[in-house]
Protein backbone atom coordinates (compact mmCIF):
# COMPACT_ATOMS: atom_id res chain seq x y z
CA UNK A 1 0.00 0.00 0.00
CA UNK A 2 2.89 2.33 0.60
CA UNK A 3 3.95 1.92 -3.01
CA UNK A 4 0.97 2.19 -5.28
CA UNK A 5 1.55 0.50 -8.60
CA UNK A 6 3.79 3.29 -9.75
CA UNK A 7 6.79 1.30 -10.89
CA UNK A 8 4.71 -0.88 -13.18
CA UNK A 9 2.91 2.09 -14.63
CA UNK A 10 6.04 4.08 -15.24
CA UNK A 11 7.53 1.18 -17.16
CA UNK A 12 4.62 1.19 -19.53
CA UNK A 13 4.81 4.93 -19.82
CA UNK A 14 8.49 4.84 -20.68
CA UNK A 15 7.99 2.23 -23.34
CA UNK A 16 5.36 4.44 -24.88
CA UNK A 17 7.73 7.36 -24.77
CA UNK A 18 10.46 5.42 -26.48
CA UNK A 19 8.16 4.22 -29.18
CA UNK A 20 7.12 7.78 -29.70
CA UNK A 21 10.65 9.07 -29.91
CA UNK A 22 11.42 6.57 -32.65
CA UNK A 23 8.46 7.78 -34.60
CA UNK A 24 9.06 11.41 -33.89
CA UNK A 25 11.94 11.71 -36.30
CA UNK A 26 9.46 10.97 -39.06
CA UNK A 27 6.82 13.04 -37.37
CA UNK A 28 8.90 16.17 -37.65
CA UNK A 29 8.36 16.08 -41.36
CA UNK A 30 4.66 16.28 -40.76
CA UNK A 31 4.67 19.00 -38.15
CA UNK A 32 4.71 18.67 -34.44
CA UNK A 33 1.06 18.08 -33.80
CA UNK A 34 0.89 15.21 -36.19
CA UNK A 35 3.92 13.74 -34.47
CA UNK A 36 2.00 13.91 -31.24
CA UNK A 37 -0.94 12.22 -32.86
CA UNK A 38 1.37 9.41 -33.86
CA UNK A 39 2.72 9.38 -30.34
CA UNK A 40 -0.77 8.71 -29.08
CA UNK A 41 -1.33 5.94 -31.57
CA UNK A 42 2.16 4.56 -31.09
CA UNK A 43 1.47 3.95 -27.45
CA UNK A 44 -0.97 1.26 -28.45
CA UNK A 45 1.49 -0.48 -30.72
CA UNK A 46 4.35 -1.09 -28.35
CA UNK A 47 4.41 -4.84 -28.50
CA UNK A 48 6.42 -5.19 -31.61
CA UNK A 49 3.89 -4.38 -34.27
CA UNK A 50 5.82 -1.38 -35.57
CA UNK A 51 8.12 -3.41 -37.73
CA UNK A 52 10.50 -4.74 -35.09
CA UNK A 53 11.55 -8.35 -34.94
CA UNK A 54 10.36 -9.97 -31.77
CA UNK A 55 12.54 -12.81 -30.56
CA UNK A 56 11.32 -15.02 -27.79
CA UNK A 57 14.81 -16.42 -27.19
CA UNK A 58 16.56 -13.31 -25.85
CA UNK A 59 15.79 -10.15 -24.01
CA UNK A 60 17.21 -8.16 -26.90
CA UNK A 61 13.75 -7.41 -28.17
CA UNK A 62 11.33 -5.05 -26.54
CA UNK A 63 11.67 -1.43 -25.66
CA UNK A 64 15.20 -0.39 -24.74
CA UNK A 65 13.92 1.38 -21.63
CA UNK A 66 12.92 -2.03 -20.22
CA UNK A 67 16.62 -2.80 -19.92
CA UNK A 68 17.69 0.42 -18.23
CA UNK A 69 17.08 1.50 -14.68
CA UNK A 70 14.84 4.53 -14.67
CA UNK A 71 15.94 7.99 -13.66
CA UNK A 72 15.45 9.52 -10.25
CA UNK A 73 12.99 11.94 -8.78
CA UNK A 74 13.12 15.67 -9.20
CA UNK A 75 11.77 18.11 -6.69
CA UNK A 76 9.86 20.19 -9.16
CA UNK A 77 9.40 18.06 -12.27
CA UNK A 78 10.77 18.25 -15.76
CA UNK A 79 9.09 19.35 -18.95
CA UNK A 80 9.04 16.66 -21.62
CA UNK A 81 10.66 16.96 -25.00
CA UNK A 82 7.76 19.22 -25.76
CA UNK A 83 9.41 21.87 -23.64
CA UNK A 84 10.28 23.25 -27.04
CA UNK A 85 6.75 24.61 -26.74
CA UNK A 86 7.81 28.04 -25.68
CA UNK A 87 6.64 31.61 -25.69
CA UNK A 88 7.72 34.00 -28.40
CA UNK A 89 9.42 37.00 -26.86
CA UNK A 90 9.11 40.43 -28.45
CA UNK A 91 11.24 42.68 -26.27
CA UNK A 92 12.60 46.11 -26.94
CA UNK A 93 16.32 45.70 -27.72
CA UNK A 94 17.30 48.79 -25.77
CA UNK A 95 15.29 47.69 -22.75
CA UNK A 96 15.22 43.89 -22.59
CA UNK A 97 12.75 43.73 -19.71
CA UNK A 98 10.21 45.75 -21.62
CA UNK A 99 7.96 44.13 -24.16
CA UNK A 100 5.87 41.00 -24.24
CA UNK A 101 6.01 37.23 -24.43
CA UNK A 102 3.20 35.41 -26.19
CA UNK A 103 1.37 32.26 -25.14
CA UNK A 104 1.69 29.59 -27.88
CA UNK A 105 -2.08 29.08 -28.09
CA UNK A 106 -1.69 27.00 -31.26
CA UNK A 107 0.53 24.45 -29.47
CA UNK A 108 -1.52 23.88 -26.34
CA UNK A 109 -4.59 21.79 -25.59
CA UNK A 110 -7.37 22.11 -23.03
CA UNK A 111 -8.37 25.39 -21.47
CA UNK A 112 -5.67 25.98 -18.86
CA UNK A 113 -2.51 27.88 -19.70
CA UNK A 114 0.50 26.37 -17.90
CA UNK A 115 2.25 28.72 -15.50
CA UNK A 116 5.44 28.68 -17.55
CA UNK A 117 3.58 29.70 -20.70
CA UNK A 118 1.32 32.47 -19.39
CA UNK A 119 1.86 35.56 -21.50
CA UNK A 120 3.79 38.46 -19.99
CA UNK A 121 3.73 42.16 -20.68
CA UNK A 122 6.24 44.15 -18.71
CA UNK A 123 6.79 47.88 -18.88
CA UNK A 124 9.98 47.99 -16.88
CA UNK A 125 11.24 44.45 -16.49
CA UNK A 126 10.74 41.92 -13.72
CA UNK A 127 11.63 43.42 -10.35
CA UNK A 128 13.51 41.57 -7.63
CA UNK A 129 11.18 41.66 -4.63
CA UNK A 130 12.40 40.65 -1.19
CA UNK A 131 9.31 38.83 0.08
CA UNK A 132 10.58 38.92 3.66
CA UNK A 133 10.33 42.68 3.59
CA UNK A 134 7.41 43.04 1.22
CA UNK A 135 4.15 44.46 2.45
CA UNK A 136 0.94 45.53 0.77
CA UNK A 137 -0.28 48.91 1.89
CA UNK A 138 -3.89 50.09 1.64
CA UNK A 139 -4.09 53.83 2.17
CA UNK A 140 -5.74 57.03 1.02
CA UNK A 141 -9.39 57.74 1.80
CA UNK A 142 -9.67 54.99 4.37
CA UNK A 143 -10.43 54.91 8.07
CA UNK A 144 -7.13 53.25 8.81
CA UNK A 145 -4.07 52.48 6.75
CA UNK A 146 -3.71 48.71 6.46
CA UNK A 147 -0.47 46.98 5.72
CA UNK A 148 -0.10 43.26 5.38
CA UNK A 149 2.94 41.11 4.86
CA UNK A 150 2.83 37.91 2.84
CA UNK A 151 2.33 35.62 5.82
CA UNK A 152 -0.60 37.60 7.14
CA UNK A 153 -2.17 37.71 3.69
CA UNK A 154 -1.81 33.95 3.34
CA UNK A 155 -3.51 33.43 6.69
CA UNK A 156 -6.62 35.34 5.66
CA UNK A 157 -9.68 33.69 4.16
CA UNK A 158 -8.99 33.07 0.48
CA UNK A 159 -10.98 32.39 -2.63
CA UNK A 160 -9.99 30.62 -5.83
CA UNK A 161 -11.50 31.01 -9.27
CA UNK A 162 -10.60 30.50 -12.89
CA UNK A 163 -10.05 33.61 -14.95
CA UNK A 164 -8.38 34.69 -18.14
CA UNK A 165 -6.16 37.72 -18.36
CA UNK A 166 -5.94 39.42 -21.74
CA UNK A 167 -3.74 42.36 -22.58
CA UNK A 168 -5.78 45.28 -23.90
CA UNK A 169 -3.42 45.32 -26.87
CA UNK A 170 -3.85 41.65 -27.78
CA UNK A 171 -4.42 41.09 -31.53
CA UNK A 172 -3.55 44.74 -32.17
CA UNK A 173 -1.90 43.96 -35.52
CA UNK A 174 -5.37 43.06 -36.79
CA UNK A 175 -6.34 46.74 -36.79
CA UNK A 176 -4.03 47.10 -39.78
CA UNK A 177 -4.94 46.42 -43.40
CA UNK A 178 -2.32 43.74 -44.02
CA UNK A 179 -3.07 40.31 -42.59
CA UNK A 180 0.02 39.02 -40.77
CA UNK A 181 0.96 35.41 -41.48
CA UNK A 182 1.62 33.82 -38.09
CA UNK A 183 -0.10 31.12 -36.05
CA UNK A 184 -2.69 32.06 -33.45
CA UNK A 185 -0.36 32.43 -30.47
CA UNK A 186 1.93 34.93 -32.11
CA UNK A 187 -0.97 37.23 -33.01
CA UNK A 188 -3.52 36.58 -30.26
CA UNK A 189 -1.39 35.06 -27.49
CA UNK A 190 -1.45 38.01 -25.11
CA UNK A 191 -4.18 36.10 -23.30
CA UNK A 192 -3.94 33.18 -20.89
CA UNK A 193 -6.32 31.48 -18.51
CA UNK A 194 -6.02 29.45 -15.35
CA UNK A 195 -6.94 29.27 -11.69
CA UNK A 196 -6.08 32.06 -9.30
CA UNK A 197 -6.29 32.03 -5.52
CA UNK A 198 -6.00 34.95 -3.18
CA UNK A 199 -7.61 37.32 -0.74
CA UNK A 200 -10.81 39.10 -1.79
CA UNK A 201 -10.07 42.79 -2.36
CA UNK A 202 -13.28 44.00 -0.75
CA UNK A 203 -12.42 42.16 2.47
CA UNK A 204 -9.29 44.29 2.73
CA UNK A 205 -11.16 47.46 1.84
CA UNK A 206 -13.76 46.66 4.48
CA UNK A 207 -10.99 46.32 7.04
CA UNK A 208 -9.46 49.62 5.97
CA UNK A 209 -12.87 51.30 5.96
CA UNK A 210 -13.79 53.29 2.87
CA UNK A 211 -14.22 57.02 3.23
CA UNK A 212 -17.48 58.62 2.16
CA UNK A 213 -15.96 59.99 -1.03
CA UNK A 214 -14.15 56.80 -1.97
CA UNK A 215 -14.71 56.35 -5.68
CA UNK A 216 -11.44 55.09 -7.11
CA UNK A 217 -8.80 52.57 -6.27
CA UNK A 218 -5.33 53.41 -7.51
CA UNK A 219 -3.02 50.40 -7.68
CA UNK A 220 0.74 50.86 -7.77
CA UNK A 221 3.21 48.18 -8.75
CA UNK A 222 6.76 47.87 -7.47
CA UNK A 223 8.27 47.50 -10.93
CA UNK A 224 10.70 49.99 -12.41
CA UNK A 225 8.05 51.43 -14.75
CA UNK A 226 6.05 52.72 -11.83
CA UNK A 227 2.91 51.13 -13.22
CA UNK A 228 -0.03 52.93 -11.65
CA UNK A 229 -3.61 52.20 -12.64
CA UNK A 230 -6.82 53.90 -11.57
CA UNK A 231 -9.88 51.67 -11.19
CA UNK A 232 -13.40 52.92 -10.54
CA UNK A 233 -14.53 51.09 -7.40
CA UNK A 234 -18.11 50.64 -8.53
CA UNK A 235 -16.97 48.91 -11.73
CA UNK A 236 -14.70 46.40 -10.00
CA UNK A 237 -16.11 42.86 -9.91
CA UNK A 238 -17.01 41.59 -6.45
CA UNK A 239 -14.50 38.77 -6.94
CA UNK A 240 -11.54 41.06 -7.52
CA UNK A 241 -8.70 39.63 -5.47
CA UNK A 242 -5.17 40.07 -4.27
CA UNK A 243 -3.91 36.98 -6.09
CA UNK A 244 -1.18 34.96 -4.37
CA UNK A 245 -1.34 31.65 -6.28
CA UNK A 246 -1.83 30.51 -9.86
CA UNK A 247 -2.65 26.96 -10.85
CA UNK A 248 -1.94 25.83 -7.32
CA UNK A 249 1.51 27.28 -6.76
CA UNK A 250 2.66 30.65 -5.49
CA UNK A 251 2.72 33.30 -8.19
CA UNK A 252 5.74 33.07 -10.42
CA UNK A 253 8.23 35.89 -10.23
CA UNK A 254 7.20 37.11 -13.68
CA UNK A 255 3.52 37.11 -12.80
CA UNK A 256 3.76 39.55 -9.96
CA UNK A 257 5.10 37.58 -7.03
CA UNK A 258 4.41 37.88 -4.20
CA UNK A 259 1.02 39.43 -4.99
CA UNK A 260 -0.87 40.95 -7.86
CA UNK A 261 -4.28 42.38 -8.42
CA UNK A 262 -6.69 40.11 -10.30
CA UNK A 263 -9.69 41.85 -11.81
CA UNK A 264 -11.47 39.06 -13.70
CA UNK A 265 -12.56 40.18 -17.16
CA UNK A 266 -10.70 43.49 -17.09
CA UNK A 267 -7.84 44.23 -19.45
CA UNK A 268 -4.41 43.07 -18.40
CA UNK A 269 -3.02 46.38 -17.18
CA UNK A 270 -5.63 46.46 -14.39
CA UNK A 271 -4.16 43.26 -12.93
CA UNK A 272 -1.23 45.14 -11.45
CA UNK A 273 1.75 42.88 -10.77
CA UNK A 274 4.20 43.15 -7.84
CA UNK A 275 1.49 45.04 -6.05
CA UNK A 276 2.80 47.48 -3.46
CA UNK A 277 0.11 50.00 -2.73
CA UNK A 278 -3.63 50.39 -3.07
CA UNK A 279 -4.75 53.97 -2.61
CA UNK A 280 -8.43 54.85 -2.20
CA UNK A 281 -9.29 58.26 -3.63
CA UNK A 282 -12.15 60.40 -4.84
CA UNK A 283 -10.67 60.67 -8.34
CA UNK A 284 -8.39 58.79 -10.71
CA UNK A 285 -4.68 59.58 -10.74
CA UNK A 286 -4.70 59.92 -14.54
CA UNK A 287 -1.30 58.25 -14.62
CA UNK A 288 0.54 57.54 -17.85
CA UNK A 289 -1.18 54.13 -17.86
CA UNK A 290 -4.61 55.75 -17.52
CA UNK A 291 -4.13 58.21 -20.36
CA UNK A 292 -1.21 57.87 -22.77
CA UNK A 293 -1.63 54.13 -23.19
CA UNK A 294 -4.53 51.74 -22.70
CA UNK A 295 -6.83 54.38 -24.17
CA UNK A 296 -8.62 53.72 -27.43
CA UNK A 297 -8.18 56.27 -30.20
CA UNK A 298 -11.33 56.72 -32.25
CA UNK A 299 -11.64 57.83 -35.85
CA UNK A 300 -12.46 61.34 -34.59
CA UNK A 301 -9.08 61.58 -32.87
CA UNK A 302 -10.69 61.32 -29.43
CA UNK A 303 -9.33 58.60 -27.14
CA UNK A 304 -11.53 56.69 -24.71
CA UNK A 305 -10.24 56.17 -21.18
CA UNK A 306 -11.12 53.40 -18.74
CA UNK A 307 -12.50 50.98 -21.30
CA UNK A 308 -11.54 48.09 -19.08
CA UNK A 309 -13.86 45.14 -19.76
CA UNK A 310 -12.59 42.80 -22.46
CA UNK A 311 -14.91 41.81 -25.26
CA UNK A 312 -16.37 38.46 -26.27
CA UNK A 313 -13.84 36.71 -28.47
CA UNK A 314 -12.84 33.41 -30.01
CA UNK A 315 -9.70 32.22 -31.73
CA UNK A 316 -9.26 29.08 -33.80
CA UNK A 317 -5.99 27.59 -32.58
CA UNK A 318 -6.00 24.65 -35.02
CA UNK A 319 -5.65 24.51 -37.91
CA UNK A 320 -2.95 27.15 -37.79
CA UNK A 321 -1.09 29.24 -40.33
CA UNK A 322 1.61 27.05 -41.86
CA UNK A 323 -0.48 23.87 -41.73
CA UNK A 324 -1.50 22.14 -44.92
CA UNK A 325 -4.82 20.33 -44.79
CA UNK A 326 -5.60 17.15 -46.67
CA UNK A 327 -9.02 16.41 -48.05
CA UNK A 328 -11.09 14.64 -45.43
CA UNK A 329 -12.02 15.27 -41.83
CA UNK A 330 -10.39 18.32 -40.27
CA UNK A 331 -10.45 18.76 -36.49
CA UNK A 332 -11.06 22.44 -35.79
CA UNK A 333 -10.49 23.64 -32.24
CA UNK A 334 -9.95 26.88 -30.43
CA UNK A 335 -10.62 28.99 -27.37
CA UNK A 336 -13.36 31.45 -26.50
CA UNK A 337 -13.77 33.87 -23.62
CA UNK A 338 -15.60 36.99 -22.56
CA UNK A 339 -14.80 39.71 -20.07
CA UNK A 340 -18.49 40.10 -19.26
CA UNK A 341 -19.54 36.57 -18.41
CA UNK A 342 -19.80 33.03 -19.71
CA UNK A 343 -19.49 31.91 -23.28
CA UNK A 344 -22.93 30.67 -24.27
CA UNK A 345 -22.25 29.52 -27.81
CA UNK A 346 -19.47 29.26 -30.38
CA UNK A 347 -20.26 28.87 -34.06
CA UNK A 348 -18.09 27.85 -36.99
CA UNK A 349 -18.41 28.95 -40.58
CA UNK A 350 -16.50 27.42 -43.47
CA UNK A 351 -18.07 29.65 -46.09
CA UNK A 352 -16.87 33.06 -45.02
CA UNK A 353 -19.70 33.72 -42.59
CA UNK A 354 -22.70 32.90 -44.79
CA UNK A 355 -23.76 29.89 -42.76
CA UNK A 356 -22.86 28.87 -39.23
CA UNK A 357 -22.93 25.63 -37.27
CA UNK A 358 -22.57 25.24 -33.52
CA UNK A 359 -19.25 24.02 -32.23
CA UNK A 360 -19.20 21.72 -29.21
CA UNK A 361 -17.82 23.05 -25.95
CA UNK A 362 -15.56 21.10 -23.60
CA UNK A 363 -17.90 21.07 -20.61
CA UNK A 364 -19.69 23.93 -18.92
CA UNK A 365 -18.18 27.34 -19.63
CA UNK A 366 -16.98 29.25 -16.59
CA UNK A 367 -17.49 32.96 -16.04
CA UNK A 368 -14.67 35.07 -17.57
CA UNK A 369 -12.59 31.96 -18.33
CA UNK A 370 -11.36 30.16 -21.43
CA UNK A 371 -13.60 27.47 -22.86
CA UNK A 372 -12.33 25.18 -25.58
CA UNK A 373 -14.54 24.56 -28.59
CA UNK A 374 -14.35 21.86 -31.25
CA UNK A 375 -15.82 21.20 -34.65
CA UNK A 376 -15.27 18.40 -37.14
CA UNK A 377 -15.30 19.67 -40.68
CA UNK A 378 -15.41 17.41 -43.67
CA UNK A 379 -13.18 19.04 -46.25
CA UNK A 380 -14.71 17.08 -49.08
CA UNK A 381 -13.08 18.94 -51.95
CA UNK A 382 -9.78 20.72 -52.53
CA UNK A 383 -11.40 24.13 -52.97
CA UNK A 384 -10.59 27.36 -51.17
CA UNK A 385 -12.75 28.33 -48.20
CA UNK A 386 -12.78 30.91 -45.43
CA UNK A 387 -13.01 29.47 -41.93
CA UNK A 388 -14.27 31.51 -38.98
CA UNK A 389 -15.41 31.15 -35.39
CA UNK A 390 -17.91 33.42 -33.66
CA UNK A 391 -18.53 33.53 -29.92
CA UNK A 392 -21.58 34.64 -27.92
CA UNK A 393 -21.69 35.34 -24.18
CA UNK A 394 -24.45 35.20 -21.63
CA UNK A 395 -24.44 38.98 -21.41
CA UNK A 396 -25.92 38.89 -24.92
CA UNK A 397 -22.81 40.05 -26.70
CA UNK A 398 -21.71 38.57 -30.02
CA UNK A 399 -18.27 38.75 -31.55
CA UNK A 400 -18.52 41.46 -34.21
CA UNK A 401 -17.43 41.22 -37.81
CA UNK A 402 -14.22 42.96 -38.75
CA UNK A 403 -16.19 45.44 -40.83
CA UNK A 404 -18.45 46.28 -37.90
CA UNK A 405 -15.54 46.73 -35.47
CA UNK A 406 -13.55 48.93 -37.82
CA UNK A 407 -16.71 50.79 -38.75
CA UNK A 408 -17.36 51.63 -35.13
CA UNK A 409 -13.85 52.49 -34.06
CA UNK A 410 -11.74 53.33 -37.10
CA UNK A 411 -8.32 51.85 -37.80
CA UNK A 412 -6.30 53.41 -34.93
CA UNK A 413 -8.11 52.00 -31.93
CA UNK A 414 -5.13 49.75 -31.20
CA UNK A 415 -6.76 48.09 -28.18
CA UNK A 416 -9.65 45.67 -27.70
CA UNK A 417 -9.60 43.95 -31.10
CA UNK A 418 -12.20 41.18 -30.80
CA UNK A 419 -13.62 40.84 -34.31
CA UNK A 420 -14.31 37.47 -35.92
CA UNK A 421 -11.00 36.10 -37.23
CA UNK A 422 -10.67 34.41 -40.60
CA UNK A 423 -8.43 31.60 -41.78
CA UNK A 424 -8.17 31.14 -45.50
CA UNK A 425 -7.86 27.50 -46.58
CA UNK A 426 -6.40 27.55 -50.05
CA UNK A 427 -7.18 24.97 -52.73
CA UNK A 428 -3.96 23.11 -51.97
CA UNK A 429 -4.86 23.03 -48.27
CA UNK A 430 -2.47 25.71 -47.10
CA UNK A 431 -3.73 27.75 -44.14
CA UNK A 432 -3.29 31.52 -44.17
CA UNK A 433 -4.66 34.47 -42.24
CA UNK A 434 -6.98 36.71 -44.21
CA UNK A 435 -9.14 39.71 -43.41
CA UNK A 436 -12.80 39.16 -44.16
Amino acid at each position, binding site marked *: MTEPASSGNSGIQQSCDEQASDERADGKQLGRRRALTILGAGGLLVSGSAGRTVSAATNASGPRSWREAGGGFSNYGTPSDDSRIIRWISA*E*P*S*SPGTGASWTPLHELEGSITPNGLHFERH*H*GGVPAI*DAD*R*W*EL*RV*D*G*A*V*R*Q*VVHLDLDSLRQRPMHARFAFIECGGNSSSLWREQAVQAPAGWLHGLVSSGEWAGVPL*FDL*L*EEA*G*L*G*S*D*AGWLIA*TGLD*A*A*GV*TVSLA*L*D*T*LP*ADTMIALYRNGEPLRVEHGWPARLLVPGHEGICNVKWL*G*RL*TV*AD*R*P*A*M*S*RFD*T*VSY*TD*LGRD*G*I*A*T*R*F*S*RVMGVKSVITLPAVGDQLAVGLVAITGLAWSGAGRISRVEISVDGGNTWDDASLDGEPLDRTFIRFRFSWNRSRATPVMMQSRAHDDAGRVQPTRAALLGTHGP*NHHYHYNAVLTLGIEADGRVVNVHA
Partner: protein
Amino acid sequence: MHLSFAAACGLTLLVPMASADESASANADMSPLIFPPLIFADGSGLPPGSGNAREGTGLYQTQCARCHGRNGEGGRALELVGDRETLISAWPDRGIGVSWPYAPPLFDYIRRAMPPDSPYSLSVDDTYSIVARVLELNALVDADTTVDAAFLSSLVMPNNNGFKQAIE
Protein backbone atom coordinates in the same frame (compact mmCIF):
# COMPACT_ATOMS: atom_id res chain seq x y z
CA MET B 1 -21.30 48.30 -4.59
CA HIS B 2 -18.57 49.83 -2.51
CA LEU B 3 -20.68 52.86 -1.69
CA SER B 4 -23.56 50.86 -0.33
CA PHE B 5 -21.06 48.76 1.50
CA ALA B 6 -19.39 51.84 2.95
CA ALA B 7 -22.76 53.24 3.92
CA ALA B 8 -23.72 49.96 5.53
CA CYS B 9 -20.59 50.12 7.62
CA GLY B 10 -21.38 53.72 8.52
CA LEU B 11 -17.95 54.80 7.42
CA THR B 12 -17.76 58.47 6.77
CA LEU B 13 -14.45 59.30 8.35
CA LEU B 14 -11.92 60.45 5.83
CA VAL B 15 -8.30 60.16 6.83
CA PRO B 16 -5.58 61.15 4.41
CA MET B 17 -2.85 58.62 3.86
CA ALA B 18 0.03 58.84 6.25
CA SER B 19 2.40 60.98 4.27
CA ALA B 20 5.81 59.57 3.60
CA ASP B 21 8.28 62.35 3.26
CA GLU B 22 10.66 62.61 0.37
CA SER B 23 13.80 62.25 2.44
CA ALA B 24 12.63 58.91 3.72
CA SER B 25 12.06 57.62 0.20
CA ALA B 26 15.63 58.51 -0.66
CA ASN B 27 16.79 56.04 1.95
CA ALA B 28 18.44 53.04 0.35
CA ASP B 29 16.20 50.95 2.58
CA MET B 30 13.56 49.85 0.10
CA SER B 31 10.90 49.23 2.71
CA PRO B 32 7.74 49.22 0.65
CA LEU B 33 5.95 51.08 3.39
CA ILE B 34 7.86 54.16 2.34
CA PHE B 35 6.23 55.59 -0.75
CA PRO B 36 6.39 59.10 -2.09
CA PRO B 37 2.95 60.69 -2.29
CA LEU B 38 0.83 59.53 -5.20
CA ILE B 39 0.77 62.17 -7.92
CA PHE B 40 -2.62 63.12 -9.35
CA ALA B 41 -3.51 64.95 -12.55
CA ASP B 42 -4.30 68.10 -10.57
CA GLY B 43 -0.71 68.16 -9.31
CA SER B 44 -1.34 67.02 -5.78
CA GLY B 45 1.57 64.93 -4.62
CA LEU B 46 4.16 66.78 -6.70
CA PRO B 47 7.25 67.38 -4.56
CA PRO B 48 8.83 70.76 -3.76
CA GLY B 49 11.58 71.71 -6.18
CA SER B 50 11.90 73.30 -9.60
CA GLY B 51 13.81 73.39 -12.85
CA ASN B 52 13.79 74.99 -16.26
CA ALA B 53 14.44 73.98 -19.84
CA ARG B 54 17.79 75.73 -20.01
CA GLU B 55 19.04 73.49 -17.19
CA GLY B 56 17.23 70.55 -18.72
CA THR B 57 18.86 70.73 -22.14
CA GLY B 58 22.10 69.06 -21.12
CA LEU B 59 20.28 66.55 -18.93
CA TYR B 60 18.01 65.67 -21.82
CA GLN B 61 21.00 65.04 -24.08
CA THR B 62 22.67 62.70 -21.62
CA GLN B 63 19.60 60.96 -20.23
CA CYS B 64 16.99 60.92 -22.99
CA ALA B 65 18.32 61.75 -26.45
CA ARG B 66 19.80 58.36 -27.29
CA CYS B 67 16.34 56.80 -27.36
CA HIS B 68 14.00 59.74 -27.97
CA GLY B 69 16.20 61.66 -30.44
CA ARG B 70 18.13 64.88 -30.03
CA ASN B 71 15.03 66.99 -30.40
CA GLY B 72 12.39 64.54 -29.31
CA GLU B 73 11.81 63.23 -32.80
CA GLY B 74 11.93 59.65 -31.58
CA GLY B 75 14.22 56.73 -32.29
CA ARG B 76 14.42 53.49 -30.37
CA ALA B 77 11.71 54.96 -28.16
CA LEU B 78 8.61 56.95 -29.00
CA GLU B 79 8.76 60.48 -30.31
CA LEU B 80 8.16 63.18 -27.73
CA VAL B 81 7.02 65.75 -30.28
CA GLY B 82 4.16 65.17 -32.66
CA ASP B 83 1.35 66.75 -34.58
CA ARG B 84 -2.15 66.59 -33.10
CA GLU B 85 -3.63 66.90 -36.57
CA THR B 86 -2.43 63.36 -37.27
CA LEU B 87 -4.76 61.91 -34.62
CA ILE B 88 -7.41 61.47 -37.31
CA SER B 89 -4.96 60.02 -39.85
CA ALA B 90 -3.99 56.42 -40.54
CA TRP B 91 -0.73 56.80 -38.60
CA PRO B 92 -1.28 59.08 -35.63
CA ASP B 93 1.73 60.72 -34.02
CA ARG B 94 2.53 60.24 -30.40
CA GLY B 95 4.30 62.86 -28.36
CA ILE B 96 3.80 64.77 -25.16
CA GLY B 97 1.71 67.53 -26.68
CA VAL B 98 -0.32 64.96 -28.58
CA SER B 99 -1.06 62.24 -26.07
CA TRP B 100 -0.51 63.53 -22.52
CA PRO B 101 -3.66 65.30 -21.28
CA TYR B 102 -2.09 66.42 -17.98
CA ALA B 103 1.40 67.57 -17.06
CA PRO B 104 1.85 66.31 -13.45
CA PRO B 105 1.75 62.60 -14.41
CA LEU B 106 4.55 63.37 -16.84
CA PHE B 107 6.74 64.33 -13.90
CA ASP B 108 5.66 61.16 -12.09
CA TYR B 109 6.46 58.86 -15.00
CA ILE B 110 9.79 60.43 -15.93
CA ARG B 111 10.89 60.40 -12.34
CA ARG B 112 9.98 56.79 -11.63
CA ALA B 113 10.57 55.08 -14.96
CA MET B 114 13.22 57.04 -16.85
CA PRO B 115 15.81 56.37 -18.05
CA PRO B 116 14.87 52.69 -18.32
CA ASP B 117 18.36 51.45 -17.45
CA SER B 118 18.48 53.63 -14.36
CA PRO B 119 14.93 54.30 -13.21
CA TYR B 120 14.12 56.49 -10.24
CA SER B 121 17.64 57.92 -10.34
CA LEU B 122 16.88 61.53 -11.31
CA SER B 123 16.70 64.09 -8.54
CA VAL B 124 13.50 66.06 -8.11
CA ASP B 125 15.05 69.23 -9.56
CA ASP B 126 16.61 67.36 -12.48
CA THR B 127 13.26 65.76 -13.19
CA TYR B 128 11.57 69.17 -13.23
CA SER B 129 14.29 70.39 -15.61
CA ILE B 130 13.85 67.45 -17.98
CA VAL B 131 10.08 67.94 -17.88
CA ALA B 132 10.74 71.59 -18.73
CA ARG B 133 12.97 70.59 -21.65
CA VAL B 134 10.45 68.21 -23.19
CA LEU B 135 7.72 70.81 -22.72
CA GLU B 136 10.00 73.31 -24.48
CA LEU B 137 10.44 70.86 -27.37
CA ASN B 138 6.66 70.95 -27.58
CA ALA B 139 6.67 74.78 -27.53
CA LEU B 140 4.80 74.82 -24.23
CA VAL B 141 7.40 76.70 -22.14
CA ASP B 142 10.34 79.03 -22.71
CA ALA B 143 13.89 78.17 -21.79
CA ASP B 144 13.69 80.11 -18.54
CA THR B 145 10.17 79.30 -17.45
CA THR B 146 10.29 77.99 -13.89
CA VAL B 147 8.71 74.56 -13.90
CA ASP B 148 7.55 73.40 -10.50
CA ALA B 149 4.50 71.91 -8.82
CA ALA B 150 2.44 75.07 -9.17
CA PHE B 151 3.36 75.51 -12.83
CA LEU B 152 2.63 71.92 -13.83
CA SER B 153 -0.66 71.98 -11.92
CA SER B 154 -1.86 74.99 -13.90
CA LEU B 155 -0.50 74.06 -17.33
CA VAL B 156 -3.29 73.17 -19.76
CA MET B 157 -1.95 70.55 -22.15
CA PRO B 158 -2.87 70.89 -25.84
CA ASN B 159 -4.75 67.61 -26.01
CA ASN B 160 -6.53 68.06 -22.69
CA ASN B 161 -9.87 67.78 -24.49
CA GLY B 162 -8.80 64.82 -26.58
CA PHE B 163 -10.29 62.22 -24.27
CA LYS B 164 -13.62 60.85 -23.24
CA GLN B 165 -14.33 58.26 -20.61
CA ALA B 166 -15.99 54.90 -20.94
CA ILE B 167 -17.13 55.39 -17.34
CA GLU B 168 -17.54 58.44 -15.15
